Every structure is written in structure tokens, then in C-alpha cells.
């Protein structure tokens, strides 16, 4: 019999759109880990930002440091004007958009029917 954790082999896929000097809050990291555990302990995160790779990885420290059990893949991407196009077709479950990201970007994502969540990224002490 199939185990419940093996019902869906697809990872939980999230995109995070964030600008420099910001970091994801701990509650979002926890939320992502909970969703990933429900979906078979795999999480794929696409980080779109104005930073050069690999600094985007640091934005996810709250997630990396609290994760012990989930397979985590972080794909870092440059924040580009045609972001909606970049995100469509990737099977993204949820897009987290930091509140300082321009309204235009948010509207474009909404237009494409993506599931959005706005968050406050505070200040990333490592970057500030």
C-alpha cells in the first residue's frame, strides 16, 4: 500500500520575490516547511531578486537554519520585468511577494492567476 507521504511525488513549489536588504520572516519559513512536509518532504523555492547569485540564498537563512528533514532546492533568478512569464508553467503553488516589490509586478502576477501572498521582509541583518 502506498504511504501517505508518497502520494504526491511533486515537491511543494514556492516563488519568493524580494529585493535586497530583506529576508523572509521566520513564520514564512515555517509555513513553507509545513507545506513541504505535507507534500512528501520536498520543497523547491525560486527566489527572484535584484541581487547577484548566490546572495539570494542568504535571504532564505531562516528556512535553511530551521530545516533538518525536507529536501530543499533553491533556484536563484534575477528579478526581470517579464516575471509572470518566468513563473508560468513551473507548477508554482504559491508566490510570496515582499511588500516593497513594485505594485506593477504584483498586478502582472495576479493577472496570470498565480496564488499570491504579500509579506513584510523587514531588514536582512546580513545584508544591511
Amino acid at each position, binding site marked *: 500500500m502506498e504511504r501517505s507521504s508518497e502520494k504526491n511525488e511533486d515537491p511543494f513549489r514556492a516563488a519568493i520575490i524580494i529585493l535586497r536588504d530583506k529576508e523572509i520572516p521566520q513564520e514564512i519559513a515555517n509555513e513553507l516547511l509545513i507545506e513541504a512536509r505535507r507534500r512528501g*518532504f520536498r520543497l523547491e523555492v525560486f527566489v527572484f531578486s535584484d541581487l547577484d547569485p548566490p546572495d539570494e540564498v542568504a535571504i532564505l537563512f531562516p528556512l535553511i537554519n530551521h530545516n533538518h528533514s525536507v529536501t530543499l532546492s533553491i533556484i536563484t533568478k534575477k528579478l526581470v520585468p517579464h516575471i509572470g512569464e518566468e513563473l508560468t508553467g513551473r507548477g508554482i503553488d504559491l508566490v510570496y511577494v515582499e511588500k516593497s516589490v513594485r505594485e506593477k509586478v504584483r498586478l502582472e502576477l495576479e493577472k496570470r492567476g498565480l496564488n499570491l501572498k504579500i509579506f513584510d521582509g523587514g531588514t536582512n541583518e546580513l545584508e544591511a
Partner: protein
Amino acid sequence: MNLKPEVIITTDRTMMSNHHRKEFLGFVATGPAIGMPEKIWLWISSPKPKILDDGEPLEAPYGLRKVEAALLKSGIETKVVDPAYLNHYIETTKVLMIGHHDFFAYGPPSNEWWLLTGKEPINRISFAKLMESQAIRRMKKNGVKIIVGGPAAWQWLYEREKWKKWGVDSVVDGESEKVIGKLVERALNGEEIPSYVYVGIKDVPSLEEIPEIVKPSVNGLVEIMRGCPRGCRFCSVTLRPLRFIPLEKIEREMLVNVKAGIKSGLLHSEDVLLYGADGVKPKEEPIMKLHEMALRHVEDLGWSHASMAAIRYAQEKYKLISKIMEMLKTKQDFLGVEVGLETGGLELAKKIMPAKSAPYPVEKWHETVEEAMKIMHENDVIPAVTLIIGMPEETEEDLLQTLELLDKIKGYRSLIVPMMFVPMGALKNKEFYKKEMIRDLHIQVLYKTYRHSIYWAKEIVRKSYLKSPTYLPLRGVLEFFMWYVENKVEKIVKELPTLRSA
């Protein structure tokens, strides 16, 4: 088979060496060169290995061999190449894979030597030289994808400038056997690859999925189990599921080494005595069978790690240490192993390593350590004992109890290696131990361990470790080094009021 595969696996010189067939000498590379030129220091720790065809080393670190085996199993041609020969592969390589157990010297004991001397350890310098070598720079210009991994993968998160500067494309943290094939395939196809991968429980390989090495490992190291049931909070290994590698699989890997002419064996586990154990209680049969099998093939055998509690239990219940040593002594004089003491502070032990002393109660930790040290001393097992200072929640009372425990074990032949706390395992969100955190009691612990180790090191080097005349030049250099360190330290001690009475 293509002579020049598109996927190359390598590491720097401090890792790509058999350390004169003395694994412990590899630790010399975790410090800066002291009292001698860097070249001699590097020769002591990491002489160049025997090279076979076109830069392929006869023996390579076990972790690299596992990655090689995993890729071959996925149908990807690959080759481990000595760092000095990477220039032979500039035009043909598409993916360069680099493994290490301490890329930037943040791990123990590198960070400790760095903090105490204020000088960069050789392993860090050597790794930077590799990454800035002409061969790697030219490969990068050609568009080669660089994937790094191994037990020190986490260190890249703290060295993002170098990550960027050296053009590392992906960092893989964790047991990679199940994920590495797909990742390399994507890199070969020019597809998008993740910047960072952490391997979680769903992707940890089962026993059947762990591939056997196909080429020899440094000093005949073979893995006998993965994971550890003790659950110490500072250790990342306990986060992995416990798996005992079947005896026949271990034997096949040993034969890979023996057939290549490597006659020594090194059993790798977080606690060799827990092979086939009932929880934390060692069992006689699997341990005896393991050693009987190993001794059929190798001329001398070492253990990577064992625990104080397992040593005590195995001896008290089965006289197992004596039985193993009786077997081993038909071929060798002593057995080397790394054993964790970590702290003498009982309250701290309860918080961070409550099962370290199991099956004995944590309150009896001092008694367990003393008993285990006595058992090892009487049976010619020579431990390198690790001790961690600066752990979160450590109090003065914990340090005083550690000093007491060090006094209790001073008569037992061993090296004690103090290490500064590095945030790993369940404590990975805590702070690194830093220079400004050093207290007088830390200095006293460091000094006591130094005096213990320098006293016993002289005997160990002369009578056991480098006894053979083959090692005469190496012994001479090491004895000079110990003399130099003693002189230096005694001068410092005269200036430090904390230590004058210690």
C-alpha cells in the same frame, strides 16, 4: 570508455593524500604552518598520492569515491582527478565536482587553530589555491559548471563572496547519492540547476541505494554504517537515519582497496562498536564477524570513531575490546580511534548529549569516561579524544567539571583535541564560538589538554604511531615541532596569570 569524461571530481591537496598512511596526520593540515615552512607542513600532512593514468590518484577520499560510484550507476562517465592534473582536462570538462570536509576551515579543529594562532589554516589556503588555479579559472571561462558538496557544504553559506568569485554553480548539502545523478545530468544538458540543495529524509539513500565504491579509497576507508542513535544536539550525523551496511557489501569495498594494493583498512562509523547493535548496546557477534572478515583481507585495521559508553559496555558485558585487540595484535601493535568526550559538565551533558553516556545514566558520565579511557589504555587502543568548548548554555560549573574530568584521565595514553563550538546539527541556528567569548576557564581547559597531549604525543609518536624506521624523517620533523611548540607555549604561560598556577 572515454579517456576524458565530461564530469571530473576533485579536491585540494590536503584532502587528496594518504597522509603517509597515517590518517591522523591529515589533521596537521587543519592548522597553520608553525615553526616551519608551509611546504614542509604540507608534506607532513598531505604528501601527493601515487598517480595512475593521466592524473587519476590510486586512492581518493571515500566521499569522492561514493559520488563517483553514484554517477557511474546513473550512467554518467566520470573520473576522480588529482588537483595537480586538472590542466589535462580543461578542454573536455563540462562539470567539475569538488568535495571537502572543511572547505574554509570553519570546522573543528581548524577553527580552533585559526583562532588561537590568528593564522589561516593550511587546508583553507590550499583550497583557495585550488579554486584560483589556472586550470579551474580556464574551465570556468569555458562555461564549466562547478558543483561542490560534502560534509562542509554548509560553509559556503558563510562565504558567499567566494562562492560568487569562484563561480560555484551549485552547493549540495547532505547524502547526495540519490540526487546527484539528476543534478549532473541537468548541468550536462545546460539546464537550470539549483544554487543550493539540502538533502532531506525523503532523498536519503536506503542501503540498497548506497552504491559500492569501484575504485580505492584513502587508506582503505570503508563505511560500515550511517547515522547514529545517540541524538547529540551539536552533531549533524544524528539527523540521518541509522543504517548498517551489510557485511558482504563492506567486504566487497575492502576488496576493491586490497586488490589495488592498499593493505590497510579503516572502518568508518560514528561509533564502530554500534555496528549491528541493539540500540546503544553493542552486540558481540556482529562486531566479531566484522573484524574477522576485515582481518582476512587487511594487514592493519583502524577505527574512525567509537564512543566512551560503547567501549565501556562492550568490555564490561563481553570483554569485547580485549577480544578484538587480541585478534588485531596478531598484525599490529595498537588501534587508533577518535572518541568524543565533548564535555565534563554534567548539566550541559544532560542538555546537549543526554544519550551520549547511554546505556549508563548521564549522571555517571565521568565514571563512564574514566572506565573507557582505562579500558583503552590497558588494551593499547589509542584515542584522539575530542572536547568541545564554547557550546551554547555552557556554564562555569560545566568548565570546572571538565577540568576535574581531565585530571581524572591524565594517566591514560591519548591525545585530547579541544574544539571550539561550531553550529551544526540541531544547533545550526546558534552562534559560532568567537575570540571575544574566551574565558579564563576556557584557557585553563585548553592548557590542560595541551599538557596532556604533548606528554602522551611524545610516547605515541616514538613507541606506536611512527615506530617503524620508515617513518624516521617524519618522526624527526614532528619531534622538532613538539619541541618548538613546548618552548613557545611555556613562554606564553609565563605571561598569562591565569595559567601560572594551572
